[in-house]
């Protein structure tokens, strides 16, 4: 007889993932449990590591552009926008007004698509299957616009350094407007399904609370920060690509729990629609490509440019040595940094909440692991 059996120990180590459907990819979380209570977590990352930053050092500036789409693949357009803005900053290049407006439209559509995917999968994790189908249906409409615009639905490679490669297609404005008209009632529909749903509220309210101070401490940005009450959005704080021209609000909540993050993202979708409408109405005519030359060769220097991606602050720190290839590209991935707060949010919670909290962080493992 052994002196002690596993029954004597109060601690249980449980491995979750990397093939767990609720970890949204290949995240592996090692949970230390006391019964149902989580005592601590350890994330094992890197299952999707492809060395994007290394690849960047071996490609020219233009050639690296498609690779950034593969980090946060549900918001590929945001990734591309951030990268193009960073290189344009190094080049000191001006982007024509039309290109900027089209960029805003597509980026906001992408934000909607990203939040829709988040909503569908998050609701699925919590146990509501219906929203997934609804969300996918509307997301499809957004993806169709991408496909018509640039020929790809997910890894779009929609923007080029200096502007756009593709002119908008016939009926682009109308389709965007139709999308907005179609979409707003649908958000109400999702809210009808979830917002006052008792199970939804019971599972989300008070779960995974992160205060604004903790968010700053952990570098957590995006909807998670706004749900904690900090009114901070890079589109307003440091506008890029002409966001200062559009009128929109930054939704905030107070509690900083999972439910609030849900509310924030729902509001953000509405705001995104508002921005799309304004941008489409005021879409200027003109060229779509700035003067950057065929060979992109920024002067020696370095720049950090960040944008408000659907997940938070997405930054690119690019060091140029004056050649056609970046000397170093560092991506500041919002998912990676946000994921770090997982431990703080889960401690003391229940195992069932782990799924809710991973879902609410809205991580994409392609971006966490790069």
């Amino acid at each position: 007889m052994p002196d002690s059996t596993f029954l004597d120990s109060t601690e249980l180590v449980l491995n979750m993932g990397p093939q767990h459907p609720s970890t949204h990819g290949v995240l592996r979380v090692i949970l230390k449990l006391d019964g149902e209570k989580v005592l601590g977590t350890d994330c094992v990352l890197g299952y999707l590591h492809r060395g994007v930053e290394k690849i960047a050092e071996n490609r020219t500036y233009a050639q690296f552009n498609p690779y950034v789409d593969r980090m946060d693949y549900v918001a590929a357009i945001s990734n591309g926008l951030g990268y193009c803005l960073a290189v344009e900053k190094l080049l000191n290049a001006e982007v024509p007004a039309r290109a900027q407006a089209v960029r805003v439209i597509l980026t906001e559509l992408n934000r909607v698509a990203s939040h829709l995917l988040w909503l569908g999968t998050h609701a699925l994790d919590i146990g509501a299957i219906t929203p997934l189908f609804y969300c996918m249906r509307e997301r499809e409409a957004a993806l169709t616009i991408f496909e018509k615009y640039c020929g790809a639905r997910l890894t779009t490679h929609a923007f080029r350094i200096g502007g756009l490669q593709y002119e908008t297609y016939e009926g682009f404005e109308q389709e965007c407007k139709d999308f907005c008209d179609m979409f707003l009632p649908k958000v109400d529909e999702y809210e009808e399904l979830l917002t006052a749903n008792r199970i939804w509220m019971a599972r989300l309210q008070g779960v995974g609370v992160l205060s604004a101070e903790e968010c700053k401490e952990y570098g957590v940005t995006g909807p998670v920060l706004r749900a904690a009450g900090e009114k901070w959005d890079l589109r307003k704080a440091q506008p890029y690509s002409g966001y200062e021209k559009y009128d929109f609000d930054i939704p905030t909540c107070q509690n900083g729990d999972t439910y609030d993050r849900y509310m924030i993202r729902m509001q953000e979708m509405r705001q995104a629609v508002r921005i799309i409408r304004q941008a489409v109405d005021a879409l200027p005519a003109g060229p779509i490509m700035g003067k950057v030359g065929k060979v992109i060769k920024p002067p020696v220097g370095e720049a950090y440019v960040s944008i408000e991606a659907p997940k938070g602050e997405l930054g690119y720190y690019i060091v140029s040595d004056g050649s056609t290839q970046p000397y170093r590209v560092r991506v500041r991935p919002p998912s990676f940094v946000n994921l770090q707060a997982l431990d703080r949010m889960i401690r003391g919670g229940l195992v069932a909440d782990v799924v809710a909290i991973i879902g609410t962080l809205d991580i994409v493992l392609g971006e966490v692991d790069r």
Partner: protein
Amino acid sequence: MPDEQKPEGSPAPSEGGGSEAQQAKPPAPATPKPVPPKPAAPPAPKPPAVMMATPWTAPLAEDLKARFGDAIKDTSTYVGQNFVVTTPEAAIPVMEYLKVEADFDYLVDVTAVDWPKRPERFDLVYILYSFARNERVRIKTYIKDGDKPKTAVGVHLTANWLEREVFDMFGIEFDGHPDLRRILMPDEWEGHPLRKDYSILKQDQRWVRENLAIESGQ
């Protein structure tokens, strides 16, 4: 190979000439072996091979200089972005000072840049943001290979994973880090992929063989 002098007080690492550029080409290892010039490779660069940064003279910069004296080697701004170059020892105190006194309460990123031909091989870069001032500042320090800079976890908790990533990718060990393990690469992996002498095709053959049961990952 030319260019090794770093003018004292120069705002930026002064290499990055043509030879440097060629070295970054795909299959070229970092050994100074002649690399077949690619069509796109620039010829020996004309003048400014250094970053054309201008001095940064905001009150904050003056404040830092007054407070830390010689530890602040430089305060400059490039494309409208301010950065401070400090001695390695001063980086953490400066960050702490900025956090406490100037509201730079959000550490955006920690990263490194490898310059294999410089005596201080790595740039360690901390990007800070202040919500109250809506301002960014970068802290840069130059460290040698094998140096153990102090960790920033005591100041900003978010540095934990970010420093782990720097350790993983560059092999820079942080002194006092609570949990310095690899984060993206497998634990037993050998080599640090983002170093410039780690070619893009290189991999830890032994690890691949033992763990994936294939000869090569390519």
